[in-house]
């Protein structure tokens, strides 16, 4: 982390308005991501890790604290930060090729048609989508849709990638294939990545650092440096160090899951009470 950091989060807080008052979702998160780093954020579902990612993407504003990309405050989404969403967001009315080229046709990243074609074709090949250029997304499997979404984000040459449980909806085989494809692409293109996931194994396999966040509101619980060298391959999963680390991390994460489950129980009760109250007044 000697070079200037790409991303800086400084005491970032986010609160949402809730019927019962203010609901803190992210609390005092500070994090610095250097160039070429792969940082995973891991924590229980519903804890606010997606909100952290959305704030980096510029889709949501923090209640307090600052977020910087390359030293500039983040105020809105930008082509410098590519986002991969959990539900892919592949445009159903465009063919695979038009989906991938979509970003390149926007004014922000406009380029000559030939150049556009070249880039689209390159990523179609890279993502193994050859033969499906003119297919509509409805004919694709989940894994293929995710590859289209990846290619679309890659095509605009974002140097930072924000991924929100990108492989969560895939089966185990597709998931592991997509992880390897991602590593392969990152090796050749050199990107900075922030990945939100709830899989300890995925985080360990892909990242250089892992940020474990607490149950809601999300706080940084601990940051773990992942000691494995790149390039990595499937063999890594079987190494003793990997298994040990996975076990240790899972312990930490499971504790947060338990807390979150307790929280959710309270939520149910909290949501139930005003309802009964209303019923009573009506009666």
């Amino acid at each position, binding site marked *: 982390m000697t070079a200037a950091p790409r991303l800086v989060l400084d005491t970032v807080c986010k609160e949402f308005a809730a019927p019962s008052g203010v609901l803190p979702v992210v609390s005092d998160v500070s994090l610095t991501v250097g160039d070429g780093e792969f940082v995973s954020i891991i924590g229980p579902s519903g804890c606010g890790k997606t909100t952290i990612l959305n704030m980096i*993407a*510029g*889709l949501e504003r923090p209640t307090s604290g600052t977020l910087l990309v390359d030293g500039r405050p983040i105020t*809105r*989404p*930008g*082509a410098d*930060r*590519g*986002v991969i*969403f959990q*539900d892919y*967001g592949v*445009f*159903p*009315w*465009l063919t695979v090729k038009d989906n991938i080229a*979509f*970003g390149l046709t*926007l*004014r*922000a*990243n406009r380029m000559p048609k030939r150049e556009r074609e070249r880039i689209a074709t390159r990523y179609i090949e890279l993502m193994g989508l050859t*033969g*499906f*250029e*003119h*297919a*509509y*997304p*409805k*004919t694709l499997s989940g894994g293929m849709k995710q590859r289209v979404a990846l290619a*679309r*984000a890659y095509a*605009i040459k974002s140097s930072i990638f924000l991924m929100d449980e990108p492989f969560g909806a895939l089966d185990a085989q597709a998931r592991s294939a997509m992880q390897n494809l991602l590593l392969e692409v990152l090796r050749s293109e050199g990107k900075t990545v922030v990945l939100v996931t709830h899989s300890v194994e995925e985080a360990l396999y892909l990242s250089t650092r892992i940020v474990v966040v607490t149950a809601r509101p999300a706080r940084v619980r601990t940051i773990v440096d992942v000691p494995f060298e790149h390039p990595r391959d499937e063999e890594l999963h079987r190494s003793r160090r990997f298994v040990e680390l996975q076990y240790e991390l899972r312990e930490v994460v499971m504790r947060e899951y338990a807390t979150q489950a307790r929280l959710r129980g309270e939520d149910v009760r909290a949501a139930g009470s005003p309802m009964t109250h209303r019923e009573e007044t009506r009666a």
Partner: protein
Amino acid sequence: MTNDALARVAVTRETADRSRPGSRPGSRPGSRPGGVARKAWQLALHAGLRALPWLIVLFLWYLLPATGLVNTALVPTPWQVLVKFYEQLTTNRLWLDMYMSLQRVTLGLACGIVLAVPIGFLLGWYRPARTLFDPLVNFFRSLPPIALIPLVIVYFGIDELAKVVMLFYAAFFSGVIVMYEGIVQTNPLFIRVARTLGATDDEIFRRIIIPLALPHVLTALRVALGVSWATLVASELIAAQRGLGAVIQNASNYFQIDTIYAGIICIGLLALLMDRCLRVIAARLLQWQERIVP
């Protein structure tokens, strides 16, 4: 139901075609003679399936007098109706009535939808607008346009303008509701994706929102078409010299039941034909959809 299923089959086949480079939808190379024969047989089967319900209705209609349940003087046979239909076409200028009715529907529908699309869109898009106008829109939509006929006659008389106003009303309110309920369901994910790719507001509108709204425009058009036909005939029944509703009304004055039947069937067929045209257009424009017609 069957038609929907058939159309869906046809569309899946088209997409399969499109994914193969160089092949155009609809023009599958019938190189193998066996393939051609099978294709022809399939086409015949589809046509047969489509005709079947009509044949059943015709058959029952023929059987009806034999059951003794109805007075044969009051229920003409299909053949009588067909003869009457031909007679009306040749001697009574039924063409002109069809033309008048079609013209009124097209004009009213076009005006109604042209206004319903932007207004429905705004209502769907801006929550405050929706909260404000929702009760109003629902009130006017629930009001059967026929209930307004007396007022329309008072304000617009009984000539063409009055009918177009009625149809405009019917098309507008049925269209607006479909349009805005569709827009409310727009998936915000696509807009977020476009934003993160660097799209500006007007690019999001042109490249994301318009394609997402198009299916709803077409549905609104179809729903409004159905309502417009119903309203048209009602308004023609009351006051019109020409038009299919007037044909039925005149025949009723002279107790020509076979002509009434011919007029009703004519209305049904025209409505069906227009709906089919819209469906074909929708299928062409919305090839990407999982289902063509919602």
